[in-house]
């Protein structure tokens, strides 16, 4: 009897984890500034142009990673919430496991955390409020955090802070990103901070840390700086 249960257990374990063929997609996010890779794991990043910008912190949430073929949704990652941090290389690498034979030509994800999750209390893992991406004076996730210094910013120590978030209308900042892909196993997603920072006049706009019109505008801008082909 015991042996039967044991065997059954083993077989079901084997069937569920090993035997079933799977599609593995390695989604590698690469923060860049124009053509230069932005790495923050060993210190700040000095922008290689005359902008006088240094980047110190760059972290953002992506959620609801999905794949499509001919605009048709094929698969969505379950419990899909990822905190990506340019200072933690491992966090930029997402390993997605989907059913075998999933052939896709497009991936999508949301930049940020959805409104339902924003009102769901204390959550764990990447969504733990201790990860530095949750506001304290008011509830809600910071979807996008970019901090550094810029010669143009007339602030204390020339600092700029973009904490972009806000989940409820009319200031919702969740931003969908849709990208064409041609590779089924390895996809590099570049995030070009040059495009983001270049669209901002850092002399006048250097501290956005609350939900509102400005955060909505910058979230939309952030959604346009992802691309798969350099």
């Amino acid at each position, binding site marked *: *009897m015991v042996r*039967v*249960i044991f065997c059954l257990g083993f077989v079901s374990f084997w069937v569920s984890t090993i035997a079933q063929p799977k599609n593995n997609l390695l989604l590698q996010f690469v923060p860049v500034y124009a053509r230069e890779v932005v790495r923050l794991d060993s210190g700040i990043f000095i922008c290689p142009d005359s902008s006088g910008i240094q980047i110190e912190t760059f972290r953002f949430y992506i959620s609801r990673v999905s794949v499509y073929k001919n605009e048709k949704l094929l698969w969505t990652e379950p419990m899909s919430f990822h905190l990506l941090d340019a200072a933690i290389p491992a966090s930029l690498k997402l390993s997605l496991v989907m059913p075998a034979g999933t052939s896709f030509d497009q991936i999508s994800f949301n930049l940020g955390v959805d409104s339902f999750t*924003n*009102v*769901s*209390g*204390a*959550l*764990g893992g990447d969504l*733990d*409020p*201790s*990860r*530095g991406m*949750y506001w*304290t*004076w*008011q*509830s*809600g996730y910071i979807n996008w955090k970019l901090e550094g210094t810029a010669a143009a910013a007339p602030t204390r120590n020339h600092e700029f802070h973009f904490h972009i978030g806000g989940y409820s209308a009319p*200031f919702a900042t969740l931003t969908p990103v849709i990208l064409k892909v041609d590779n089924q196993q390895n996809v590099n997603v570049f995030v070009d901070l040059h495009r983001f920072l270049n669209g901002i006049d850092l002399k006048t706009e250097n501290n956005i840390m609350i939900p*509102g019109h400005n955060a909505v505008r910058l979230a939309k801008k952030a959604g346009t700086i992802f691309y798969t082909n350099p």
Partner: protein
Amino acid sequence: MKKYVIVLIGLLWYMAASLKGDTTVRFHVPAGWPAPVYDFTKNPPSAAKILLGRALFYDPVLSADSTISCTSCHLQYTAFTHVDHTLSHGIKGSIGTRNAPATMNLAWSKLFMWDGAVNHLDVQPLAPIAHPAEMGSSLDSVIFRLQRSTTYKKLFISAFGDSIVTGERLLKSISQFMLTLVSANSKYDQVKNKVPGVAFSLVEEKGYSLFREHCASCHTEPLFTTNSFANNGLAVDTTLNDYGRIRITHAAKDSLLFKIPTLRNVEYSYPYMHDGRFKRLQDVINHYTSGIVQHKTLSPELMRPIVLSADDKVDLLAFLLTLTDKKFLFNPDYSFPKEIFLNPAKE
């Protein structure tokens, strides 16, 4: 065959649960009360988690310099608020901009803080922990400190089976303790529940009907609040310039709106209003009869003056005092957990 497997799994689960030594606790909804807003399925209460939350509530370890705990401003004997202090206090003698609210019946509240800045009970403690004029700390530094404490190691093991401290665990445990703070045993409740030998006096009875006529649309029974927001006609204090809910919604219609507080235990929760401007209940009643400042967001119920005679005011006050719940104010389950802090494990 299948049946045996299910029984076996059940048995193993039971053994694992009893090994942990934790007991689940059922949340009791008082008779006639609405269903709680808090989703207990996401944070099932247990004795060990409630105890952990209670320890955290009373422990100044949450603050930057270990001087301020939740209870510094939320004292049980005064309905979990800070009597005699108009504005909340924090580390290094700093003073905040708002009056600490009385804290009870939180399972029925959807939004927290005077302006509704906080959308869930679990994340409420983040605000005072991080506010520079309150605890001036941060969740990750609290986690760092708790991880080095043998007292909390024990508490986390009995609550969660291991000693790992996470933000989620910490916040959910504080929620579990705060959710136990249910006040539903005042004289008013006893009259409503027809407890033998308990009845309103004539004065209280008159006060109750005045209350229903003039106050109940915002301070609705049985919670004595609708938990929504209103402009109750207070003049702006120009030393604070606090416009309430508009800070969160950025909507003009929310200018000067503040959360409607419960009136339960109102006898003990002085001073009153978001800035603690009124020391006595009489002052509050006088505000509603003769102090209302007209404003375009003023609550419609207050547009026409409330007329109360001197006798009416006495009656109304007498009714408000029936909302005092001594069992709540002196419930030993809510008090400082001596057993944890007076004989702490070796640090």
